[in-house]
């Protein structure tokens, strides 16, 4: 294909997607679309491949699953797709995300055949269900989350099926806005189809198909080229979701990344069965998370189209939290996606010499304060979802509190000067959390602390957040960032609003309570003792690392703010020598029935660490992410020893015969 035409066509295709964004923003009714930009647009091929998306504005979370939605349409309707038909879809079990994200699939034809499909996935502010806004942490079935739309023809032969639309909107709050958003989506798709027709008139079908084929092939070749550079093998890692009500009943995502030649398979076998809580997803979301990580670490610069997916396959066993069957709720899809990403990143790290980043915040950090405003008598819901510190990487500290590279670039905090007008709340503080970044040669970014006083009258506080107990891991010897934390200060004393941290459902607040939303720090990278002492001195001067931590963790001794080189060298030796290390032994017998990793520690090792049964420890992997395990047994032989399943021993063996071990948390996070 002539490279000039190819580039001009590529520009035209991505411009059509950008125009779709503008048109939908201009015409939609709900502010979450036209102000919050919680939607994505894409052009798909008849073979359900992503052809073009905008670079950076569309959310991978919306776009990547579109392939599944398209295939669901093709599977159900076969060739019964005609000009003027329009499809609607939000069903997570066949490729949706959560029910609020409604996809419109708009087939268009060239020379009598299906050609390109303009597709929009937009967040509808409400799709019915048990709570206003349709998302709740208290759900046990998907029926509580709103109306499920399997792939349907919402229009046939150019006529909208009004009966379908009436039934849908009758089950949603504020039907007028839903109707407006629906019509805006139809109009936007129709405009995009017109623009594709103009391209067809200009270049002809053969040239356009040739260009599209070439663009996909090139993206595929780029990815294959990157994969060929990696050592073949199977790399495993696991990550947890903090489920449970009274106590932690973790759900596990197990990832095996299998690299063979120029292909990569992610096998999520061994992942927890689906659960009667919000943290499940349909078949599309885990591949989306896996793709996001693989693309980001192997080829961040290439086009985002389905060609890049061709060398990848993701296996999601049915009936698990990564491929749930009805009626498992799916509102916590962001949390599951983050967990898959943590697991895949930990596995991939082993194939790319640990060149990953410290871990991220683990989910949406959804925090709600709701009540009746005493000033107006009107009900209100204040909602924020604080961003957190980013992970450090080989060569740079993590960014402080900002949307991460895996997420779209959205606002997560409201202006204080708007909050205090609109809600009976006063913002007391918005600050970086000192010492919250994971330590390392490169330090994780700091999380934030957002502190609000409730004024006037009682209200309720709800939270859906992950990594409140198991903090974002550090890599290659770096330590974890501080966990997310959501709590209340009442009459000067801290009050925990739920038995299980991070899962708060309608905690009753009193006027005068101070509510603290604290987001996690990013995981660190590399051994903190290898951090440039001058960088530590700067961190202390900046107030992001305390002098005590500088001495205790980084071994940096400061005199009047200046590094004392000799004292620092000695301190670092002392710290290095005093680190608890264990020799590994293979643990026989079956693992824990719920899939969590367990270990046995010798009494000496447990004493050195100050841990007890049920506590969580991590085994440091100098070449990647640490392995975390629950202490299931203490005792056995003397000496500093730990027993772990053979796969864990094999993974950690790369780090030498004695492995550093750290305490992560008690069973409740303390």
């Amino acid at each position: 294909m002539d490279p000039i035409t190819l580039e001009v066509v590529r520009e035209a295709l991505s411009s059509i997607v950008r125009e779709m964004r503008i048109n939908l923003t201009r015409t939609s009714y709900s502010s979450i679309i036209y102000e919050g930009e919680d939607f994505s647009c894409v052009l798909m091929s008849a073979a359900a491949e992503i052809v073009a998306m905008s670079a950076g504005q569309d959310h991978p979370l919306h776009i990547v699953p579109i392939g599944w939605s398209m295939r669901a349409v093709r599977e159900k309707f076969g060739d019964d797709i005609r000009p003027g038909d329009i499809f609607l879809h939000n069903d997570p079990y066949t490729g949706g995300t959560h029910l609020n994200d409604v996809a419109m699939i708009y087939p268009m034809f060239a020379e009598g055949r299906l050609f390109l499909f303009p597709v929009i996935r937009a967040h509808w502010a409400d799709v019915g269900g048990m709570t206003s806004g349709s998302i709740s942490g208290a759900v046990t079935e998907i029926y509580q989350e709103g109306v499920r739309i399997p792939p349907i023809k919402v229009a046939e032969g150019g006529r909208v099926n009004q009966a379908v639309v009436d039934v849908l909107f009758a089950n949603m709050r504020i039907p007028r806005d839903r109707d407006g958003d629906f019509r805006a989506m139809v109009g936007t798709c129709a405009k995009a189809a017109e623009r594709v027709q103009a391209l067809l008139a200009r270049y002809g079908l053969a040239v356009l198909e040739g260009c599209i084929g070439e663009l996909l092939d090139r993206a595929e070749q780029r990815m294959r080229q990157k994969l060929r550079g990696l050592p073949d093998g199977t790399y495993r890692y696991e990550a947890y979701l903090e489920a449970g009500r009274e106590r932690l009943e973790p759900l596990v995502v197990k990832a095996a990344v299998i690299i063979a030649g120029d292909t990569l398979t992610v096998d999520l076998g061994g992942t927890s069965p689906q659960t009667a809580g919000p943290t499940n997803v349909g078949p599309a979301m885990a591949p989306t998370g896996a793709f996001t990580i693989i693309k980001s670490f192997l080829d961040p610069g290439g086009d985002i189209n389905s060609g890049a997916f061709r060398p990848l396959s993701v296996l999601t066993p049915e009936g698990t939290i990564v491929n749930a069957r009805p009626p498992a709720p799916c509102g916590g899809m962001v949390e599951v996606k983050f967990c898959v990403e943590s697991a895949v990143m930990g596995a991939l790290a082993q194939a790319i010499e640990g060149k990953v980043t410290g871990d991220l915040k683990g989910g949406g950090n959804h925090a709600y304060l709701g009540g009746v405003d005493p000033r107006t008598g009107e009900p209100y819901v204040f909602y924020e979802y604080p961003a957190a510190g980013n992970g450090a990487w080989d060569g740079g500290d993590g960014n402080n509190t900002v949307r991460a590279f895996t997420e779209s670039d959205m606002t997560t905090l409201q202006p204080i000067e708007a909050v205090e007008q609109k809600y009976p709340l006063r913002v007391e503080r918005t600050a970086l959390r000192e010492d919250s970044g994971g330590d390392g040669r490169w330090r994780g970014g700091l999380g934030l602390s957002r502190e609000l006083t409730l004024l006037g009258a009682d209200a309720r506080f709800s939270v859906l957040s992950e990594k409140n107990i198991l903090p974002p891991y550090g890599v290659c010897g770096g330590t974890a960032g501080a966990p997310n934390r959501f709590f209340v200060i009442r009459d000067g004393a801290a009050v925990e609003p739920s038995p299980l941290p991070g899962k708060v459902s309608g905690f009753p607040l009193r006027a005068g309570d101070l509510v603290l939303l604290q987001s996690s720090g990013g995981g660190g990278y590399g051994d903190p003792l290898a951090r440039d002492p001058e960088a530590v001195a700067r961190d202390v001067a900046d107030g992001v690392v305390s002098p005590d931590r500088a001495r205790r963790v980084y071994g940096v001794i400061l005199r009047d703010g200046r590094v004392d080189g000799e004292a620092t060298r000695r301190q670092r030796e002392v710290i290095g020598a005093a680190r608890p290390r264990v020799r590994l032994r293979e643990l026989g017998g079956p693992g824990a029935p719920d899939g969590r990793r367990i270990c046995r520690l010798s009494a000496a090792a447990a004493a050195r660490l100050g841990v007890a049964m049920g506590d969580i420890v991590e085994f440091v992997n100098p070449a990647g992410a640490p392995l975390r395990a629950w202490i299931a047994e203490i005792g056995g032989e003397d000496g500093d020893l730990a027993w772990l399943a053979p796969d864990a021993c094999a993974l950690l063996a790369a780090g030498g015969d004695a492995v550093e071990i750290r305490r992560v948390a008690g069973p409740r996070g303390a």
Partner: protein
Amino acid sequence: MVVVGIDVGGTFTDLTEIDEATGGVRITKVPSTPGDEARAVLAGLERLADPRAVRRIVHGTTVATNAIIQRRGARVALVTTAGFRDLIEIGRTKRNIPALFNPTFVRPRPPVPRPLRFEVPERILHDGSVLRPLDEGALARLVDAVRPQAPQAFAVCLLFSYANAAHEQRVARALEQAFPGTPVSLSSEVVPEYREFERFSTTVFNAYIQPLMERYLEAMEKRLLAAGYPPGVLTVGSSGGALTVDAARRLPIKTIASGPAGGVSQAIFVARSIGAPDVITYDIGGTSTDVCLISGFAPGVTTESLLAGFPVKTPQIDIKSVGAGGGSIAWVDIDGALQVGPQSAGAEPGPACYGRGGLEATVSDANLLLGRLGAGRPLGGTIALDPALAARAVDRLAARLGGFDAHRLAEGIIRIMVARTVSSIREITIQRGHDPRDFTLMAFGGAGGMHAIPTAEELGIARIIVPRFPGNFSALGVAASDIKLDLVRTCIGRLAGDALPRLQELFAGMREAAARQLQEDGFAPADMRWVHALDLRYVGQAFELTVPVEPETLTAGGAAGAFHARHLQTYGHASEEAAVEVVNARLTAFGVVTKPPLARYASPTRRLAEALVEERAVYFGGRFAPCPVYERERLPAGARFPGPAVVEEFGSTAVVFPGWRAEVDEFGTLRLEGAA
């Protein structure tokens, strides 16, 4: 008497002189002297005006913008409400740079590092009432804490200061007493609008560039005075009008889009003169293409812009900039794709044909190779272009693509560059609910006229105009600028009858302040003009639309009606039954200056042949064809000629493609029309 307009760019400083009586224009261009901008300005002025004949000098400059982008601003201390010193860093938690899928992105840091952020115990509430008073002891402690840091400028940013500026003013007084001569920016003066992060960010930038701008303006004024020019060099502001020396010194943040704003102002001036209300400007320079939609002679104005990853909330003309210009580099990606830009060879080393060590093929090299750009005319009068170097650079790129024909490749580079600009034009037009085919494309800048026709063809635009002096266009617009003040007051509440007295009061207060200022600047009341507007939204929305209003006839119903209409135009729907909320009252105040008329073109020739410079082979659609080359300023008025043709002039080249016709109108404007 004459007025002088100057556009101080990174590579060249453009100067124009307009005769007040006749509208006659003289132009020149000199190489810029970064760091000592006045030197280039004086060198250029020497070629033009007699200092005694100059009534005023207006200039556009990017010194402030460049200082921000290159992080060369002052050591700023931020003083803010206790509990919020990190707000300037946390912001709204957006990356504000392209970083999706990039695990190692580095978020831009605020220009004030953490140790230079100071907190004072105080708190004002949204209604302006004081929750926690600011006491003198706290101010004394602040001064003590700040002193060892020796800041060069202060930004005072307190919560809710738009509702009550008393605490900010008291902090300012304490700082001014303790640190005399160190400039202090107050958020309640820079942008007295609600939304603290955007206000703080704008204020911090203002402080960051204040010392530099002061030095710059002082040096400029001193040198000009010494050379006999009149005092008071004016600076063009981002929203189009000019700022007095004092205003530019206090609020340099209002100059950040100074240069391109001049071009748009001139485009509007030309559009009015020739009666074309709907115009898309197409300004191609070395590194970028700036496009702006002008509808009914009015450009879009925005208060939502980002600079170096941080918001700037002062009004500016809504100009979209794409990283595609004459210096944009053509390169081959790892997957073999041919790409153009956004990297640019800039001024140094510049395109390969500049002969300054640039080796990579750029858009200018492609144009030179195809004969569209002439080698015989040194760029800006100083830089000679070498076709052999251009050919070598394109050949190297062709080899990387596996042996491509160099001329076809050059044509392809231009096609790709054009495709990028086409997308941006299409996007700005649909953003404002228009169809590009209803617009006239106005091409200027060094290379606008070279790429206008393929761009118009892609967009279905039938009319192009290339105004006179396209290479000095911004400098012309700068000269014709009125003095402009943008004022704003936040007053959040339902738009209802009982809100009107308060709004009237705010408008009157702003008019009074503006009138005082304009009077100080030497304007009589007859030369002052006001434009009032309200920022309105539906209750529950987070963003506003600006709706012009007339205070004398202001009613709640009238303003709401105008808002519904505006909402309908912008978003395609409106809710007549929904409650409307006022957020801000805005006043734009103009001190109207006498503007020379757009001069009629006094053609030096009668026959087209007299303008013919040469005939050279120019490449179009796969082959070279002989093509006449005309000298723009020698074309006779009323001349008509078909493409292919090239029209060259000082600082700019226009290319008339085969199938298009050119005509020179009474103002000397080159009008291009397609065959269809």
